[in-house]
């Protein structure tokens, strides 16, 4: 029974990780940059939802609909006024875009620290500690709600990317930026919107995880690391890959925490990360294709 519960909890958690990672993979796909500020965006989204809940009594699952537009705007601004500028700069190391995201990460984290101190905070709702029983397994209610909202968002994003003109433009830019530009796609607008959507998804994922995680300014690092592992597992730029990658990571973490020592579970994740980088550069999808 322990195994069953471990697996289900892992998958549910993984669904929410997936939402955050999809945000990162969208940004990576379109911009071809590694966004080390992604976790910080999750953190900001969590604080927005937290403030809504603490100061205005708004339920976190409603608060996320405030956090998402706020983060969308923040993402657009970061992309437009900071990252896009670097395209024109002639630097010796192309990785300076990555470093810029480190700078952004520092700024966001420290602003949060100034406003909220380094305290550990959490949101409690009436249903926070509720559980439902599935046979002999008890599943926490926030985990269940979070998972279903995350899956709903993933599905809606999938529809958006495949059915709408804007979504198709984003995918086109992701596949071949030059060709997309020749076809008349305004790539700077697309990158801006993509970063906005990526940030909004990060906020959504963060808000869903808020009832389950402690919130503090440095919590972002955790999510950056998780998103990376998921994106690499799923293959860069692939939405569905990230969704499956998220589930896998959630499962692995849950199993690892139960059956391997807590201390080494992160090591296992990182080793898998390097192995996938080396041997499966396209993520687990390259296994399927073979």
């Amino acid at each position, binding site marked *: 029974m322990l195994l069953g519960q471990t697996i289900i909890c892992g998958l549910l958690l993984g669904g929410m990780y997936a939402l955050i990672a999809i945000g990162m993979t969208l940004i990576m796909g379109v911009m071809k940059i590694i966004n080390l500020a992604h976790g910080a965006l999750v953190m900001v989204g969590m604080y927005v939802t937290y403030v809504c809940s603490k100061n205005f009594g708004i339920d976190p699952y409603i608060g996320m609909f405030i956090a998402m537009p706020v983060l969308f705007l923040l993402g657009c601004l970061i992309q437009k006024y900071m990252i896009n500028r670097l395209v024109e700069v002639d630097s010796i190391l192309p990785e300076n875009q990555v470093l810029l995201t480190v700078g952004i990460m*520092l*700024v966001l984290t420290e602003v949060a620290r100034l406003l909220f101190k380094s305290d550990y905070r959490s949101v409690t709702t009436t249903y926070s500690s509720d559980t439902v029983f599935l046979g002999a397994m008890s599943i926490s209610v926030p985990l269940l709600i979070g998972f279903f909202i995350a899956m709903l968002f993933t599905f809606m994003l999938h529809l958006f990317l495949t059915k709408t003109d804007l979504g198709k433009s984003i995918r086109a830019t992701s596949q071949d930026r030059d060709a997309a530009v020749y076809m008349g796609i305004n790539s700077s607008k697309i990158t801006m919107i993509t970063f906005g959507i990526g940030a909004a998804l990060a906020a959504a994922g963060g808000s869903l995880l808020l009832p389950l995680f402690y919130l503090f300014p440095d919590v972002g690092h955790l999510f950056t690391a998780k998103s990376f592992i998921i994106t690499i597992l799923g293959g860069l730029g692939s939405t569905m890959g990230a969704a499956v990658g998220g589930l896998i990571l959630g499962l692995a973490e849950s199993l690892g925490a139960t059956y391997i020592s807590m*201390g080494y579970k992160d090591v296992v994740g990182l*080793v898998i990360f390097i192995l996938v*980088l*080396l041997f499966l*550069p396209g993520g687990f999808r390259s296994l399927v294709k073979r």
Partner: protein
Amino acid sequence: MLNKKFLMTIAFILLAVLIPVFIKAPYQLHIFILIIIWAIIGTSWNLLGGYAGQVSFGHAAFFGLGAYSAGLLTLHYGLSPWWGILLGPVVAALAALPIGMICFRLRGPYFALAMLALGEIFRLVFLNVTDFTNGAKGILIMPAITSKMFYYYTGLGMLAITLLATFLIVHSKVGYYLVAIREDQDAATSLGIPTTLYKNLALLPSAFFTGLAGAFYMNYVAFIDPNIVFNLTNISVMAILVVMLGGVATTWGPTIGAAIYIFLGELFRTTLGSANVLIFGILVCVIIMFLPNGIAGELDLLKRVTQRKKASVSGGV
């Protein structure tokens, strides 16, 4: 032109040697010692990242290995941590061999990510092998020497060796090959350059001297724990920033960057209180956006533009 450069170098060395004559306050000397440590780290990182173009997000691994080599010698064998100055760099360089073999299979951002993950693995392992490393409790030693002046000159000597070694490497065949690899790996291969071999030739001294800085840090600060010396943000990322601040692929850039980093850090810390890291973060963004090749790198460019001269030195070669 060469003479002017030579004279400036001499002046710089004289200044560095004379600093403790004028500045005797321990706190101020402490600042200069920190600058020296960061200058060594930055100069080492610059060899691999700046010249060879292999941006490592995991140099904390080498720094930490150097520091722990010194610390563990004392903890387990009761030896003076100064033996770590010899052992630390060697351990770091030995670790660099397999790390290079793994990570140089990857290019560009993938290399950066793999190094990042490796650095974190080292931190986590050192946290968890508590029997051997003391885990998160860290290692505390009682330094035999407390004179700041002593540490200043020892550190300065190490920095001088690091700078000289880097300078000699960069101005040799290896240096040309490294820059060629950075500029275009396919072109480099077509010129008969075994790119993986030369990347390793940059990584080894880079790890060696970063390990040296780590071992010296252990001796000077006398306390380490995995979260300090294997830290991703405070060591690995700062190593890159120091170089970016000062000048990518320049001889003196990392030293200048280290000075700016430490001075500004201290200035912000004393005047701005808790906002200091925030201001520093903003500064980082501004520098990357407006001076992408660092202050020394862009000065060069500025000079070239104003003098309307054809470039005589480029890519730091």
